């Protein structure tokens, strides 16, 4: 096992990784920007190194600074968390080249799954269902129009290098597609430096259902069940739960098998997530694979009892996954995560500032992953996620009422949060009944 791990991240996920390291007896190095001296991860780690200014390009995204910090502290492995450098294949390569271990998948797997059109082609070859669409990058708008005519409208254009909705355009007919092609091409070029696009059939009201994967160097690949992540606003997940209200044992087995096949197609290792779109008829389609630990991983931890970050560390150290097979993962109960963002509840604008009063809920079936404390100043430079409030109950009903009471017991003053919006979502009839798809939030916010 590693003796010292550097955590190339900040905030709640850095705190989460410190927890896992401590449980395995591994020393931790927190890197932080000049704005994050008082951030909880810097306070809790065994060692800290200030690696740059507040702007993340100079600090958390600065590969040279991160590697120098690893060098001067003598760390033997680096955990990238999520975001920042987590899905940067070049960074993973540099970590390996410097003789350290990157706690995550091999660079090749990151690169393959990072190119969305390549990933599509690669998993299709392993008989994982994909949406009808282009067999690789599109050559021209003419090709796009021809293909769309064949598979039928609506269709969606996506950037090969894409993510987060950029370079993505929906088209309901030929003229829209014609216009969308150039816009998407330019946007992808600007955002990713790679303008190539691919095209897929557009599903009108799919669910977003993803499977958690663990794969070890011994060639074992298992899945730990699904997370339903349909409650999103502008491609940002807000509420995730497991199990999905839409899945029965058969569909779960079928999708789980496809998720494992997708991971095998990428010669995957470590923890990863295979995202699917699921339509109303129970047909599912590979969307993409996230080659990192997800924000919402605790949902799976609550229902399986498996510590995913400790599994990441073990796998990276060459040990096998601790459950020999899927049958040793016995999910129990129902878990829901509410993402608490420091944002204006009406405008969704970030709400940085000093936390003047804080009460975190506790008691049965409540888990909090957060870097907040009373007196902490949320800096304006980073993500607005300040806490993940999770609840676990014997069934979905208990999880829902527990969510309501935990949110009611949460008190944050000094900054604004979206906690009250979560309360209102919990009162929504469709949400209560599990009738959710990726357009749920649009309907909810305009209602």
């Amino acid at each position, binding site marked *: 096992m590693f003796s010292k791990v550097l955590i190339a991240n900040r905030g709640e996920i850095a705190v989460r990784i410190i927890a896992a390291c401590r449980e395995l007896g591994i020393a931790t190095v927190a890197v932080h920007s*000049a704005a994050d001296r*008082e951030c909880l991860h810097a306070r809790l780690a065994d060692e800290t190194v*200030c*690696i740059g200014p507040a702007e993340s390009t100079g600090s958390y995204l600065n590969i*040279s600074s991160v*590697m120098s910090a690893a060098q*001067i502290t003598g760390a033997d492995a680096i955990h990238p968390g999520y975001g920042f450098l987590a899905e940067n294949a070049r960074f993973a390569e540099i970590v390996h080249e410097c003789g350290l271990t990157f706690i995550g998948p091999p660079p090749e797997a990151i690169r393959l799954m990072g190119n969305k059109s390549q990933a599509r082609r690669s998993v299709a070859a392993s008989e994982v269902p994909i949406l009808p669409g282009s067999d690789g990058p599109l050559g021209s708008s003419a090709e796009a129009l021809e293909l769309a005519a064949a598979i039928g409208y609506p269709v969606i254009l996506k950037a090969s290098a894409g993510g987060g909705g950029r370079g993505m355009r929906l088209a309901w007919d030929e003229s829209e597609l014609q216009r969308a092609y150039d816009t998407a091409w330019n946007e992808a070029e600007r955002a990713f430096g790679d303008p190539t696009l691919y095209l897929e059939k557009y599903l009108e009201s799919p669910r977003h259902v993803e499977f958690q994967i663990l794969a070890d160097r011994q060639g074992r690949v298992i899945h730990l069940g699904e997370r339903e992540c349909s409650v999103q606003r502008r491609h940002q997940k807000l509420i995730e739960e497991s199990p999905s209200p839409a899945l029965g044992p058969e569909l779960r087995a079928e999708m789980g098998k496809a998720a494992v096949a997708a991971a095998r197609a990428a010669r995957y290792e470590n923890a990863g997530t295979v995202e699917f779109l699921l339509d109303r008829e129970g047909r599912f389609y590979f969307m993409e694979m996230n080659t990192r630990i997800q924000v919402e991983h605790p949902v799976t931890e609550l229902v399986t009892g498996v510590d995913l970050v400790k599994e990441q560390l073990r796998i990276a150290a060459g040990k096998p996954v601790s459950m020999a097979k899927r049958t040793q993962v016995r999910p129990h109960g129902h878990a829901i995560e509410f993402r608490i963002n420091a944002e204006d509840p009406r405008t969704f604008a970030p709400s940085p500032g000093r936390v003047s009063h804080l009460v975190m809920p506790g008691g049965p079936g409540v888990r909090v992953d957060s870097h907040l404390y009373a007196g902490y100043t949320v800096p304006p430079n980073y993500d607005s996620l300040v806490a993940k409030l999770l609840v676990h109950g014997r069934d979905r009903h208990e999880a829902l009422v527990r969510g309501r009471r935990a949110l009611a017991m949460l008190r944050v003053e000094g900054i604004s949060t979206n906690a009250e919006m979560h309360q209102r979502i919990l009162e929504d009839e469709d949400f209560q009944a599990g009738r959710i798809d990726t357009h749920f939030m649009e309907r909810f916010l305009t209602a």
Partner: protein
Amino acid sequence: MFKFEEICELIRLVGSTGVSKVEIEHAGSRLHVEGAAHVVVTPGAVAQAGAGAPPPAAPAPAHGAPPPAAAEDDGLHAVVSPIVGTFYRAPNPDADPYVKVGDFVERGQVLCIVEAMKLMNEIECDVRGTVMKVMPENAQPVEYGAPLFMIRPA
């Protein structure tokens, strides 16, 4: 004593900087401000400054790096490390140090090397003056923003 606005400014400063306590005595007057964190304050600097001086620097954390902006002491100028790495006073182990205490240095003159990722980064002086102090030991790791040299500007 101070003007009201000046005291407000001090309080705001204490709150935002995380200083734990400021005490000011002036001609029989005394001002004392305590913040949240535990940071030592040198009362001298404030008393000397008379009115509305910024609170002095926070003490150095583990790796000796206060915020770059606050790296001032008795009118000295701090040359800080722009990167994380290892501090070397000379271009190679057998060579003489680039500069010694007492040397007069020009703006742009190389003061030391900070090695990061096998790259030797020459750190240049950003002021003209006399070297008063060399902060890290040779071959010591330095953080971003760590003070390297204290210079008395000419």
